[in-house]
């Protein structure tokens, strides 16, 4: 079966039904291993002490808030270029999850910053660009809710999502382009990670756990969105059958 066959929502729902329990199990195992390593095998940092343990949730949340927006951007291309029926379902479903990961990254970063930097917040390029990302997520969620027709909303949101994607390289390279209080990259670098393996491995396991969590939640949210659109389509069909010509007046919002 080709990838494009999963453009059919019914087939996609069957696939989700099979895949979801396995992904959920893997996610729980990864979190159990990651949290055990974060608290019981990873050593204290020689400068930061135990506060380095905040990194095991802050960094994966920060990676995932960018990955989620990347998924939304790819989905938006699918909406605008190929009109893939699941593309805007994917983008819409990912937005609240991305907003939650961005919120986690900002707040855990702030809670890490206070004891290490002496302040909860500075308007440096990294922190500000991630805050802009959170505002983008919230704006997109609002846009989807303000338009009744999910197809029209999907197209408008796709354009805005792709404009907002310009922020992704700014977030990634902000610590190189400007002087920031936030430290430069120490894992994803051309010359390899600068973190000791005892600290790096728990971080990578937690990153896998967060990634699996994203896919579990995204698939569940996509399934819900497909069901929501079915409810809407059935209500519209019933309304047009009982009151021909008045379907537009009785149209239900997608949410």
């Amino acid at each position, binding site marked *: 079966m080709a990838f494009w066959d999963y453009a059919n929502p019914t087939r996609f729902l069957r696939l989700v039904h099979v895949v979801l329990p396995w992904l959920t199990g893997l996610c729980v195992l990864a979190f159990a291993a990651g949290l055990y390593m974060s608290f019981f095998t990873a050593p204290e940092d020689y400068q930061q002490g135990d506060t380095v343990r*905040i990194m095991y949730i802050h960094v994966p949340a920060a990676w995932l808030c960018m990955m989620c927006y990347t998924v939304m951007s790819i989905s938006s291309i699918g909406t605008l270029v190929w009109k893939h029926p699941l593309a805007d379902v994917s983008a819409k479903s990912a937005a609240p999850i991305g907003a*939650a990961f961005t919120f986690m990254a900002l*707040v855990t970063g702030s809670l890490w910053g206070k004891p290490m930097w002496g302040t909860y917040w500075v308007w440096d390029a990294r922190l500000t660009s991630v805050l802009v990302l959170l505002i983008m997520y919230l704006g997109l969620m609002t846009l989807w809710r303000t338009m009744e027709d999910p197809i029209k909303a999907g197209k408008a949101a796709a354009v805005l999502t792709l404009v907002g994607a310009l922020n992704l390289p700014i977030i990634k390279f902000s610590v190189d382009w400007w002087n920031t209080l936030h430290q430069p990259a120490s894992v994803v670098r051309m010359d390899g990670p600068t973190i000791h393996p005892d600290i790096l491995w728990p971080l990578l396991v937690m990153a896998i756990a967060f990634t699996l969590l994203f896919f579990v939640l995204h698939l569940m949210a996509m399934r819900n969105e497909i069901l929501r659109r079915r409810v809407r389509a059935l209500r519209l069909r019933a309304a047009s059958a009982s009151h021909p010509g008045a379907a537009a007046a009785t149209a239900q919002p997608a949410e």
Partner: protein
Amino acid sequence: MDLGTHAGFIVASYALCALTIGGLIAWVRLDKANQERDLKELADQGISRAASGFGSTRKS
């Protein structure tokens, strides 16, 4: 376990993440229950995909 002098910041960070992730899980589960309830109510009124002539391979 001794988390040192900044234990409050560490515990607050993990608690916030647990709450946020718990909220996300509750949201998707509640949303699924709502959509399934709406579909069932429509089906009880005789409004279903099968009755509307939707085939299993058609886009909804």
